[in-house]
């Protein structure tokens, strides 16, 4: 029966490299490797040649030299005497700040819009459809510019807030929306505020521990503790008590009109606001679709079965629908967070000083180090992306349907 001769007994022939499937894959790979390496070598060689022609070297020393430009929005101490490296860090923090704020607001908007789009209320569902389609089908850059124009063109000037002006501050004279930005109260951290913050974080930890305990107890005994109320109490009560015990260490400095502008308080610049809102509304539209599809992905039988077991609607939502919907929602949600972080580089449109504007913009222009600057910029975004997608993979493995 064995008419096929044993291939190993035949001597190796050169033709087998091409016509034998076992060797052909090796041949293809070797050729691919050679071509890719030749291409990369060509790129590297060209770069070396071009650099030497321009009289440049490849050196990251510029990060330690004086930056000499100002950054109007900073989370850490920075002046124009600081180094380029510090300017880059200021930019990175600004990018992370707008990404963080954007992710939070986008999630809130997206969840609300996604749930409302499924509502039986015709008008609300249609309005949300208009919102989602409107934001998904128009470039983000345009939305950033529109919101920035709204913030600068359609808001009153600071002088309109004076006596006789037609603008007024909101929330007991604590917030002023002007064309130079939004002025909000600034917290002044007095003596003992460190302790207060510590108490606050301790209460957050206590909430986490309590919820864990409550879940364990429910799984063991079936007894359900009033998680929501106790969590709320834990969130507020210790901090408030300590606030008064310590004699009010944190005070608020309200913005006041002085001269032609507001002084005191915290100025949130229009660039940040426009970027933040535009990113949130744009990403929110995508998240709304993700939430909607996640809820629709849980079959109706699950709800009916939960009702048949006698669960009330909110328990059905919490214990049956949400855990299953979240499994569908979370992975694309995190990739939306990733998109938001990358899209924050559109800050260039409104002059927000993110990492692309400091390290990838002014620093490159001043030092003429395009290659090094762009490389660092790319590495920063790449590392951020890889960290976020790494977290996503860990989560995915944790909530994956465990088939037994």
């Amino acid at each position: 029966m064995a008419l096929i001769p044993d291939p190993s007994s035949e001597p190796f022939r050169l033709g087998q490299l091409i016509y034998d499937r076992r060797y052909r894959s090796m041949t293809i790979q070797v050729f691919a490797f050679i071509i890719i390496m030749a291409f990369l070598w060509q790129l590297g060689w060209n770069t070396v040649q071009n650099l030497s022609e321009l009289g440049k070297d490849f050196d990251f020393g510029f990060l330690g030299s004086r930056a000499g430009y100002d950054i109007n929005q900073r989370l850490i101490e920075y002046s124009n005497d600081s180094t380029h490296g510090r300017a880059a860090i200021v930019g990175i923090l600004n990018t992370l700040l707008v990404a963080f704020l954007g992710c939070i607001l986008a999630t809130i908007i997206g969840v609300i819009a996604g749930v409302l789009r499924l509502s039986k209320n015709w008008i609300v569902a249609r309005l949300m459809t208009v919102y989602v389609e409107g934001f998904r089908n128009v470039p983000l850059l345009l939305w950033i510019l529109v919101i920035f124009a709204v913030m600068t063109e359609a808001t009153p000037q600071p002088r309109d807030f004076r006596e006789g002006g037609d603008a007024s501050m909101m929330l007991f004279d604590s917030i002023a929306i002007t064309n130079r930005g939004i002025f909000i109260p600034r917290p002044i951290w007095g003596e003992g505020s460190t302790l207060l913050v510590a108490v606050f974080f301790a209460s957050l930890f206590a909430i986490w521990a309590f919820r864990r305990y409550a879940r364990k107890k429910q799984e063991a005994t079936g007894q359900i503790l009033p998680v929501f109320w106790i969590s709320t109490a834990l969130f507020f009560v210790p901090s408030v008590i300590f606030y008064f015990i310590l004699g009010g260490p944190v005070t608020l400095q309200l913005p006041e009109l002085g001269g032609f502008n507001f002084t005191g308080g915290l100025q949130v610049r229009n660039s940040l606001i426009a970027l933040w809102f535009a990113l949130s509304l744009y990403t929110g539209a995508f998240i709304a679709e993700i939430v909607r599809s996640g809820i629709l992905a849980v079959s109706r039988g699950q709800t009916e079965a939960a009702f048949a077991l006698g669960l009330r609607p909110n328990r059905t939502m919490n214990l049956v629908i949400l855990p299953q919907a979240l499994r569908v929602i979370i992975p694309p949600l995190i990739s939306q967070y990733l998109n938001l972080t990358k899209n924050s580089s559109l800050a260039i449109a409104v002059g927000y000083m993110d990492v692309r504007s400091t390290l990838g913009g002014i620093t490159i222009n001043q030092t003429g180090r395009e290659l090094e600057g762009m490389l660092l910029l790319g590495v920063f975004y790449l590392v951020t992306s890889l960290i976020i997608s790494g977290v996503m993979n860990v989560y995915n493995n944790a909530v994956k349907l465990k088939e037994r």
Partner: protein
Amino acid sequence: MANSANSSVSYVRTEMLPEQAPPVSEAGVVKWVRENLFSGPLNTILTILSLVAIYWVVSHVFQWFAYGIWTANSLSECREVRDALYADGRNVACWAVLSERWNQLLFGFYSADAYWRPVVALIVFFIAVAPVMFNFGGRKLAIFSAVSPFICYWLLWGGSIWGPILTALGFVLAWLAYGQITRQFGALAGIVASILVPLIYWRFGVAPLTGLADGILPIGIENIQSKDFGGFMLALIIGITGIVLSLPLGILLALGRQSDLFIINKFSVIFIEVIRGVPLIVWLFTASLLLNYFLPPGTNFDLMLRVIIMVTLFAAAYMAEVVRGGLAALPRGQYEGADSLGLDYWQSMRLIILPQALKISIPGIVNTFIGLFKDTTLVVFIGLLDPIGLSNAIRATTEWNGIYWELFIFIGLCFFVFCYAMSRYSQYLERKLATDRH
């Protein structure tokens, strides 16, 4: 008997009652409103809030929008016309900026007597994609589709007709070489020849031959530089080229990522992750700032071409992930079935795996297309005049200084129309290709 029964049970009805109309609250508009708008306290509040919001927007915007002024040469003239027309001092839109700058918004600084060329190129493009999109036409139209890129290129950039024709000849040469060499020396030599022959021809043959042909028979139209391209024409050129090129490249990358060949697999993974991990705007800056470092000294090529390459690579990496999702979603049995039929790798991919995988991934593919088309606006940051760049340029002139909303609304609407049309088309395609329901 019947009579006595009737008389003793007097309350039994003997005739049918006529059908009655349902109560007012359970029929028609009232029922619909009750069920859809006011079914509970929360719903009622939401309805009222939405109505208030709609009223607020309409009352503020409608007048501004509908009473807009369409003929004026500058913003100040617009305001004069407004004050003359409406004594009540209402604020109205100045749509005149669109009518006055219409050509610029569509074509940028393309030379005015050549506006017909992009229009014809767009029509050529639509005829060329018709066989793919709506499944009609047949073989002759398919040949036209293959030729159409060269026609479009010639129409848009102009110059001698011989350049595109002789470049296209390279593909014919490749085909001929493949046929001839395969017959004589086997398939592998044929493939190598079909790659090498056109490359040599393009490198050394095209330029002298073009010069020669021009000397004999100069046919050509006015040459237009890339820097004059702008407006929606630019967005469409970058978008469409990116879309057409990124799909095949993305499929190849996805196959590479699924491949068992270690080096090809790792190279695809690295390429995809690096491209996807960095924002497009950084890639565009790389294209405009750094590409000169990577090219041989002394070469310099068109910024628009660089942008198209970057946008294509960027979209291809996203496309690869979408297609990979489709490949992974196919049941294992399809791969094994293809193997058991004795098909080789490319046959099984072409005939069995890819048609199904691409069908599954249509929504994702079209989403990537839409994203790519929207991302064409980013080229404004490296100095190309896309619609947003033109809106900035228009605002910088003295006539139209201070005009925002009209331009934004127009640009937004145009993008909306294109993107929404694409998403509707993908839904149509999904319905058309659905084989699992009747």
